[in-house]
């Protein structure tokens, strides 16, 4: 094979490799979210209430303990799981019970969930329960929202102020 044929062959193969890189580094475009759709993200990291009640320790019990461990109350470490339900336009869209993290189940319960909705007006209802010893949901929120296409609505729980938030 003469040199010109070799150069042409090499040029074609380099061009083919360049085409593969150039094309597949940006094409085809990926439709991550359909047009006219919006996204609701439910996400919180919240420590549920203690699963058991704290117990006052008697003087005799405290006396048996080393001086540095004489706390007046003895509390269990385990936390309640956190339950959450979301209604969108009156229909249950998501329901989840998040277990506390940690080997002793004493950490925060974390939730992250994406819910795709049509852009436009919606009525969002959120119910959250973080105390296994209470009846019903501990926190609720109902709110009307209007979502533009591709907009993200974040449903969170503000642990400091003990309230559900929509952002």
């Amino acid at each position, binding site marked *: *094979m003469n040199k010109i*044929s*070799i150069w042409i*062959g*090499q040029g074609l*193969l*380099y*061009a083919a*490799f*360049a085409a*593969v*890189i*150039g094309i*597949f*580094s*940006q*094409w*085809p*475009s*990926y*439709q*991550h*979210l*359909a*047009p006219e*759709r*919006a*996204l609701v*993200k439910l*996400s919180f*990291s919240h420590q549920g209430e203690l699963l058991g009640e704290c117990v006052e320790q008697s003087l005799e019990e405290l006396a048996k303990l080393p001086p540095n461990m004489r706390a007046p109350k003895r509390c269990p470490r385990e936390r309640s799981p956190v339950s959450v339900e979301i209604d969108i336009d009156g229909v249950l869209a998501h329901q989840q019970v998040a277990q506390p*993290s*940690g080997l002793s189940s004493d*950490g*925060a319960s*974390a*939730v*992250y969930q*994406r819910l795709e909705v049509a852009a436009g007006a919606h009525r969002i209802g959120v119910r959250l329960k973080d105390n296994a010893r209470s009846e019903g949901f501990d926190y609720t929120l109902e709110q009307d929202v209007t979502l*533009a*296409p*591709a*907009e*993200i609505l*974040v449903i*969170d729980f503000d642990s400091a102020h003990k309230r559900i938030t929509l*952002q």
Partner: protein
Amino acid sequence: MSALSQAWSRAERRLDRWFPAGTNPLVNLGAIACLLFAILLLSGIYLFVVFDTSVSGAWNSIDTLSRQQPVPGGWLRSLHRYAADAFALVTLLHLVREWVLGRYTRFRRVTWLTGVPLLLFMYVSGIGGFWLNWDRLGQYSAIASAELFDALPLLTGSMARNFLGVDSVSDRFFSLLIFVHLGVPLLLLFGLWFHLQRITRPAVWPTRALSVGMLAMLGLLAALWPVMSQAPADLATVPSAVPLDWILLHLHPLAELLSPAIVWALIGGVLLLLLALPLRREQALPVAVVDADNCNGCRRCVADCPYAAITLEAHPNGKPGRQIAVVAAERCASCGICAGSCPSATPFRSARELVTGIDMPQQPIGALREQLELALAGAGQGRVVVFGCDHGADLRQIDDQRVAQFSLLCIGLLPPSFVEYALRNGASGVVVVGCAQGGCAFRLGERWTAERLAGTREPQLRASVPRERLRMIFAGPGQEWRVAVAVEELRGVRAT
């Protein structure tokens, strides 16, 4: 040889037409990957200098570079991106080639096993690079990656919560990203050092022609099709449609299509399969054997062994300064290149039984001399002698009584003095056949043989041997016609 490896070998031989003299990219994939990695490191240094590690400045610094300084800034940025894509493709092809050709067991086990983690480093470095731009594509990749990690039961919190709102991402995030994007490639470089530990003279750079070709190709691509940033990241909205880099970011849509848990199962399954492949039990082949009486510790076998399987130790005869070659059985490829390099492996020695300093039990040099003498005795005078290789052209297909063929473990096993010995014993010519130029099954056999015959490497073929009666050619499986052509050429020379 399986049908798959035959097909691959055929493709390589076909590509030899346009990439002659060892420049075939398919047999230089590892070296090309190293070149691309070097391009990534060098172009990355420039990008690092101008990169602003803050939420507000990250996108701006890279976008401004592309718009206000197309050359060298924008060009280098594009080169960096395309080199990353090429690096991923070439590395995966390198892995597929070694798998298809069955090069992952026995003496290649450690090299294979140390290569598998490099795939992870490559992906982490590649994906993290998109985040640094902090445009819509970076935002999509960062959130998709975080959601993928959230599927792992190891993490107590949600990583994706770090990208919930506009205020969620801080400047520290970009400092961390830079640390990862610089640290992981350095880990890759360190891992590469391990990967090449059991290889003598690793080809970390492709041939000059191939390097120039790759650089020109990427440089032109970067100049003609510059990479530009998408709109800046906006965590209040979803990047609905993104021009995805399918070469590096294909895991994201896959996780959406299947579920993050299935993608992790796939990743784990592939990695486990890759790590388990070399554990397959293979029949042990006889390894090189050293004969203390004939080994003078000359070091030639140490220099020529492609897999660093031979070392020197104090000679058992106890003479001060004398050394002997010692073969590490687990590293020995049973190729016999060491036997071909041994100065004692000359058929001209007068000993009735030819014992060499280092030899292959399954194909001893002494037996080769006997077979050659037998082939050239009596009616065998005037035959063309062909020395070939078990991994190259199938010499059994040469159905010609006037040809005496010898298929060796590797062409590197042939001591060059056998050429002279054959000619002196009545051969009309000698054809030496390597399996593929630059693509020897044992890496260096064809190269060392060519150099020995050219007189540039010890042991040399003596200058007095008539070169017109010798042909050194390269012919892989299916290229037996090349051997026939060389034989006819020699006959033509002889006739004139």
